[in-house]
């Protein structure tokens, strides 16, 4: 790829960190989905239940998707590091 230039070890370290954060966020999104269902199930007032369902659906999905996006970012950084290492480093 012609889209890199830099230190492969830094890029690899950043890639691993992003991948780990992404995985953690995907897990947190799942936890949030479950907790959101519990909130909706115990809130009582019908209008509040509906609002809570929407709120937690949106945010749990967004957290999960952000995790996936971070993993994609990690993979891009990882690929960039690999390309750079193949090219012998440098800028």
């Amino acid at each position, binding site marked *: 790829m012609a889209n890199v230039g*830099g230190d492969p070890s830094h*890029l690899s370290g950043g890639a691993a960190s992003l991948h780990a954060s992404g995985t953690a966020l995907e897990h947190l999104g799942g936890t949030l989905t479950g907790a959101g269902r519990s*909130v909706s199930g115990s*809130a009582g007032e019908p209008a509040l239940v509906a609002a809570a369902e929407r709120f937690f659906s949106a945010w749990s999905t967004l*957290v999960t998707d*952000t995790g*996936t996006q971070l993993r994609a970012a990690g993979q891009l950084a990882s690929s960039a590091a690999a390309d750079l290492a193949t090219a012998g480093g440098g800028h």
Partner: protein
Amino acid sequence: MGFELPPGDPDALLGALGTIGSVSGDLKTQGESTRRGFAQALATWKGPRADDFRGASAGLQLQVSEAQSTLDRAVADLDGYARVLKAAIAEIRHLESQAHHRRTQADSDAASLPSDSVEATQIQQHAAQAVGLLESQAEEERQKVRRAAAGLVGVLNAGTALAVPGGEKLSAGDLARRVHQMSGVDGISRAIAAGTLTGPQAWAALDTPSKALKPEEINTDGSIDWKKLADDVREQEKEDHENPAKALLDGSLDAWTLATAPTGGWALARLAIASRNFALAKAALPLDVMKLSQAALDEGRILETPAQAIDSVEGLLTLTDADVAAFQADAALSSAAENVVRSGLPEVLDGTVGKLFVGLGFLGDGLTLADPHSATDDKWDAGVNAAGLAMTTETGSTLVAGGLEATGLVAADAAVGWVPVVGWGLVAVTAGYEVYKHWDTVKSWGVDAWHGTEWVAGKAWDGISSAASGAEHGLEDAAKATGNFISDHLPHISLW
């Protein structure tokens, strides 16, 4: 309706909120890891796509920050609602018990009397009236819950609209699909797991976050320039305020339109919309929920009781008796304040005089909250008053914003336009508390704790003094007296 209980299970609700509070804490941790990961990768990535990656970095960090801060707010307000619900259920049960006792007593009293006697009839009539009154009280309790729920619907809808503009009108299922559509991650999870994700697929998944912020709102290491972002959001809000047609247009934009805008910075309109939505929703929130939600606003932790919330502040920050006595007896402060009062109270709180009073109000509220001898009710009044100052006045917002910027904390709050409550009510005097809570941020600047405290307090003071600049002679004296008191007494405040 009698003594029917309102629907809902407050204990189960509080339990679920505890879990969400933990998720929020973990999001904060992951947000920091994300910042470090991008910074590390970008430190030496100099290729042509580095700017795209930097933009995605800031956009994703914004998403994590928004999620964390929005969940914190929702948890705090839902916590307040759960406590209103719990109190209402307990009260209605108590009322029902009283009614039962009253009926039993009446039956007992009338038992020895002829059933058609005037006295027996009166006993039963009085009992029926008393029970009717108790039933009315039960209905009032149910009304409290309904009002609280209605207020919470507004807050949650505002939070939903922050994630997906217009999302408050969609079903939960449609919302999830819309978020997937916005984030562009459909199908790539499997590709990542299988190791088949292609570069174009990965870049496509970063397309939306990469366009969230303007390049000038992004630091070189891929983090967000929160101060610039906060300024831009405020400017956007101002433009919307001055141009209702533009505000209407912004408000009508759905997420997809915003996300596919050709230029960067689409998050701005979304944030400005959310800011307005939150302000409106908060203004409609019943006071009892607002009061109780304070308890959950300390670092996103769910505190059991208001007293524990106060204890948490007191545990970190204590004023000596001498500090409190000095404030109460400070001749310069009293004299200056009296002069201001004599010169005429402001008709509008945000007038020049009002600005000073807002500053003084923060100072007084902060002292009341921090004074270990203040009554609990006084502390809640001070907290709510401070919150009111912060939320309802331009000056209060300015002071709060100043405190946020000073502590580098605009991250969570500028993003959604919230004006937090008790913590920021303490801006003038308890700046040290904020330094403590966000010690990691302060530490990263290489300043020690004490100097960080003084610096933040100085920023708060700058806000007060600049608000009074150009004021009549008496105002400047009062502003100086306030500042002198802060500088004289802040060193005595014990943080740890």
